[in-house]
Structure formats: C-alpha cells, structure tokens
C-alpha cells in the first residue's frame, strides 16, 4: 500500500479520530472528560491486556527467536536516555536535571503509542511478532533508572536508589505489564477464556481512552507558549531520530517488517505514565512542565498521527 494511503488509513482510524475529538472538546472548553476512576480503570485494563497478549505469544516463541530482540531492547533502553540527555544538554542547553528528566521520558516507552501502532498494523493487515508487547515491559524501566543516574552522578548520595527502583519496577504500570506477561505465559492456551474481555473489545476501549488522552494533551498545549522552541524542536526531532534508530536496530534483531515498525514506534515514543511519577519523586527539582508538555502534548500526538506511518515506511524501506 502507498505510504500516503497508509497515513490516510491511520488518520481515519477510530482511535485517532477519538483522540481528535478529545482535543476538540478541550479546545472548545467542553466539560467532556472521563471520570478519574474510569481513566485509571482503562489504564489498568490496557496495560494488563497488552501484557497478557504478549505473554501468551512469549510462551509460544522459541527462546532463540526472542533473545536477539530482547537484547536489543535492553541495549536501547540503556543507551537512548544517554544520547537524549546529550542532545538536550548540548543542543537544547537545558539544565542537567531537566535534561535528565526529559531523557527519562524519551528513553522509556509510551504504552498507548505502542498499542496504537499495533492496531494500525492490524488495520492495514501487516503482521508483527506477537511477543513485541512483552518487550515493552523491558523497555519501560531501564531508561528511567539510567536518566536519574545521569542527573545524580555528581551527587549520588542524595538519591534513595532502592526507593527509586521500587518506584519504577513495582509501579502500577510496570507491574501490570510484567504481571500480564506472566499471566499470559503461564496460562498459555487457558488465556483463551479471557479473550472476549481482554482482546476483542480492546480497540474500542483504546478509542475511549484516547478521547480522554486528547483532552489531557490539549489542556497542556497552553504550556507550549512558555516552554520555548528548543523543547518543541526536541519533542518533534527526538521521535524521528529515535524511530529511525529503532527501525534499524529492530531490523538487525531480525524482526519482520511489522515487528520493526512496532519496535521503531516503541523507541520513538515517550513515556507519560511510568516516567513522570518516578521522575517527580527522584528529581523533584526538575520542572514537570517541560517533560510533561513535550511527551504528552507534542510527541504523543505526533507519533499517533504522523509518526507511526513514517516508521512503517522506514521499516518497509529497510526490508526492501
């Protein structure tokens, strides 16, 4: 299919349209917003569903097949925050702690962006390795820890490391992802029983969630005025660079075109669930407006709307 046609398909998917509805709602100052509890509940559902899906596939996949992707995932999880940090310090001229805080987000992964990529590929009929969602669980944490270390290497004493580690490893989102993977892997075929709840309605639930994400993202748009061009430039450039690197690495790791697309999207995406909480605690002096606005209000919509088709085009080009 033509890249342009793919972009169109992506833009008219219910998920992206839902996100757009949320943005519109926020811009017209509507009172449309999911109840707090429903938003949290949907997050739990999405994370768990992704984990279970990945776990079932992980259980099937031969170790040989997944070892390379797993290593590459961990490698990028450790390396990407470093190059993001360097760019933010050098080009962006951000303070060490702000640079590290932002790097933690861009080194980690956005589960919703990952999911949107999966539904995009399903819609356009491109297959991808089922165990990819298990990789998400392994990409989420390392970058956050590395980035915090970068900020604290001068004064490591001041950080309560074990507390920080607990925060990220046992935090809601990571525990649900890993827990889901474990459930899926252990239950194996028995996981079929929960398919009508965790698989079939998944995209609809994601659409509902994305409406709320649109509202949240749009409410942050205001901060853009104050946040400066350098932040916006990074928030648009980083996903493209990281996406390209991710695509290249995924192809090296022997992933299919679909898998490469997903992996590129993972690397290109910026966390806004696990990272913000951990960073807020570990680097309290960092300015949340910077890392939340860039990841939530710029990079997330960018990936959702134009990034994913671009990474897919790169993946197809690499496999051509």
């Amino acid at each position: 299919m033509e890249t342009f046609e793919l972009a169109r398909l992506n833009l008219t998917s219910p998920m992206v349209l839902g996100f757009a509805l949320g943005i519109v709602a926020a811009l017209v100052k509507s009172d449309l917003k999911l109840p707090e509890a429903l938003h949290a509940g949907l997050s739990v559902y999405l994370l768990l569903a992704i984990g279970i899906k990945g776990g079932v596939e992980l259980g099937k996949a031969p170790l040989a097949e997944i070892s390379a992707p797993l290593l590459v995932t961990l490698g990028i999880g450790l390396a990407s925050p470093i190059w993001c940090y360097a760019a933010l310090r050098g080009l962006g001229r951000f303070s060490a702690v702000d640079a590290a805080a932002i790097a933690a987000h861009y080194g980690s992964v956005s589960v919703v962006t990952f999911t949107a990529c999966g539904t995009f590929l399903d819609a356009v009929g491109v297959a991808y390795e089922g165990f990819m969602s298990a990789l998400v669980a392994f990409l989420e944490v390392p970058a956050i820890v590395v980035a915090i270390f970068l900020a604290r290497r001068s004064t490591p004493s001041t950080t309560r490391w074990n507390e920080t580690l607990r925060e990220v490893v046992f935090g809601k989102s990571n525990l649900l992802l890993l827990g889901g993977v474990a459930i899926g892997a252990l239950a194996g075929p028995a996981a079929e029983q929960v398919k009508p709840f965790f698989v079939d309605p998944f995209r609809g639930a994601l659409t509902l969630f994305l409406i709320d994400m649109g509202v949240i993202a749009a409410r942050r748009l205001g901060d853009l005025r104050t946040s400066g061009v350098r932040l916006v430039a990074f928030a648009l450039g980083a996903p493209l660079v990281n996406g390209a690197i991710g695509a290249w690495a995924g192809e090296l790791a022997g992933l299919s075109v679909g898998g490469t697309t997903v992996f590129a999207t993972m690397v290109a995406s910026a966390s806004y669930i696990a990272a913000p909480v951990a960073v807020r605690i570990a680097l309290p002096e960092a300015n949340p407006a910077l890392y939340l606005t860039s990841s939530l209000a710029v990079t997330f919509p960018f990936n959702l709307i134009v990034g994913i088709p671009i990474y897919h085009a790169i993946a197809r080009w690499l496999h051509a």
Partner: protein
Amino acid sequence: MRSPAGSTPDPVQTVVLKRVTIVAEAVLEQRLIALIRDCGAKGWTLLDCRGEGSRGVRASEWEGANVKLETLVASAVADTILARLVRDYFEHFAVVAYVQDVRVVRGDKYI
C-alpha cells in the same frame, strides 16, 4: 429535639487539638502519611481532590490530581509536622499546609 430512643445524654468531654491540613500532589500520598506518623500523629484522614495554585502541574494525570490529608494532633506535633513539610517538600513540590484549633470528642486518645 431529641431521639425517641434516648434520654438526654450527658454533656461530652472534649479536648482542644490542632487539625493540620495538607493539600499536595497525589504522588506524595504515601510519603506524607509516613511523615505525619513519624512526627507522632496517631491517625489521619485522606480525601481526593483537585486544585490550582502557584504551580499548575501534576506528576501524572493517571495518578489523579491532589490529595487532602488531615490529622488531629497535639500542638507540638503540629509544629514538627509543619517544620518537616517545609524542610522536605515545600521547595520542590506543590504543597499547602495550614493549622486550625478544633474541639475533639474524646480528644485525649489522639495525643
């Protein structure tokens, strides 16, 4: 007016205590509870809330907005709590704290 069930009960003995109220971003919930316990509070009540102040930003939308933590304590404990709050959280976090006098039923058990 009086309960059909009840003869007038005798007046209740009360104690004047401090009610310390802390409003802060939800991500601090567990830490603030630990802090007040650590300062000698015997109990606490926590409410979910949202709000705006000098800093507008929350650590994560999914964490919910703010929490309001209330504790009934002796005057000395109240002072320690406020001092610890200022030292540990006021610089970098969205926190508001204030104190009131309240007349507590059976207040002795909170001291």
